[in-house]
């Protein structure tokens, strides 16, 4: 089906960015994370022993691939202890970037499932270059989450959840915003194509299905 332009532009940009070097992962690693996440997400409703073997030829270690698969397909297994172990494997910034990439892919692929259309493919090849590894242009601190995030922060916590990894955060937020509120989050009475209450019915149903406390 025809996707509205703001959404198709955001999806294209997010997929293209998967091939770029990021905060801690190279373009090749990010594409491997995306391929692994895509395969796991597609299999998420099957019992673990019924799932397809992980995609071949990826450059991730088995430990990293396992973290990606859990975030994509077995979110109910994620808690503070699990996250602590995952962060011990990859480091805090790389973990946050990984969450951003897996979450972005989940949006792209869930849209395909929702419409019944095939999701667009990943870029064929990574862009060259090293991860950025810049100093953050803002302060981060412990707010009681699994990872540090930007502080102080005037808005909802979900808006700062990925701020430890700016490039991953940028990819994710642009995509999520285009698909959800299109910059009108604080307008509780918008009456666009879908009304705000209709939009929030959908949001609530997905959150409840995942038992997401936030």
């Amino acid at each position, binding site marked *: 089906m025809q996707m509205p332009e703001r959404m198709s532009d955001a999806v294209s940009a997010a997929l293209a960015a998967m091939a770029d070097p990021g905060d801690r992962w190279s373009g090749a690693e990010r594409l491997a994370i995306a391929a692994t996440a895509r395969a796991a997400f597609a299999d998420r409703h099957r019992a673990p022993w019924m799932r397809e073997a992980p995609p071949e030829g990826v450059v991730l270690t088995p430990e990293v691939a396992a973290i990606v698969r859990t975030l994509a397909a077995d979110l109910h297994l994620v808690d503070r202890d699990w996250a602590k172990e995952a962060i011990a494997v990859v480091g805090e910034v790389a973990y946050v970037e990984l969450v951003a990439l897996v979450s972005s892919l989940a949006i792209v692929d869930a849209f395909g499932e929702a419409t019944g259309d095939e999701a667009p493919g990943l870029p064929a090849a990574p862009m060259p270059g090293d991860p950025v590894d810049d100093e953050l242009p803002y302060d981060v601190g412990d707010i009681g989450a699994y990872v540090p995030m930007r502080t102080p922060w005037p808005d909802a916590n979900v808006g700062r959840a990925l701020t430890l990894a700016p490039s991953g955060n940028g990819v994710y937020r642009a995509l999520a915003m285009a698909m959800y509120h299109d910059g009108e989050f604080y307008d*509780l009475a918008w009456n666009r194509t879908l009304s705000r*209450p209709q939009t929030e019915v959908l949001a609530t149903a997905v959150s409840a*299905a995942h038992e997401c406390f936030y």
Partner: protein
Amino acid sequence: MLRASNAETGIDRPEHAHELEGFAAAVARGADDLTERRDDLRERLGDERFAEAAAVTAAFHGYVRVAEGTGIPVDELVVATSTELRSELGIDAYAGRANSDLGISARPAEDFTPRLDR
């Protein structure tokens, strides 16, 4: 946000709420009747509105991963204004509860910054 937008608009039950809810849950759960629900919703809404519904449904597959993956605490405003609702709906039984301080006493939304209606 559903509660807040309902309060703001005065709409208790949005049009097609049942079909929207069933569709989004079917995507999230990989339900066998997803195709029927999709076709039904698309017919009711038309292509443009259906695309928006699919997009919001998709977006929240990302939001839940960000929230659970990073363990963000629920914002104080939500904690303080949702005590009864969380209890009523059984949401306090979700594992993610452990990430939030629920000891915040109940207060009206107007006491918080940022306000949702700014």
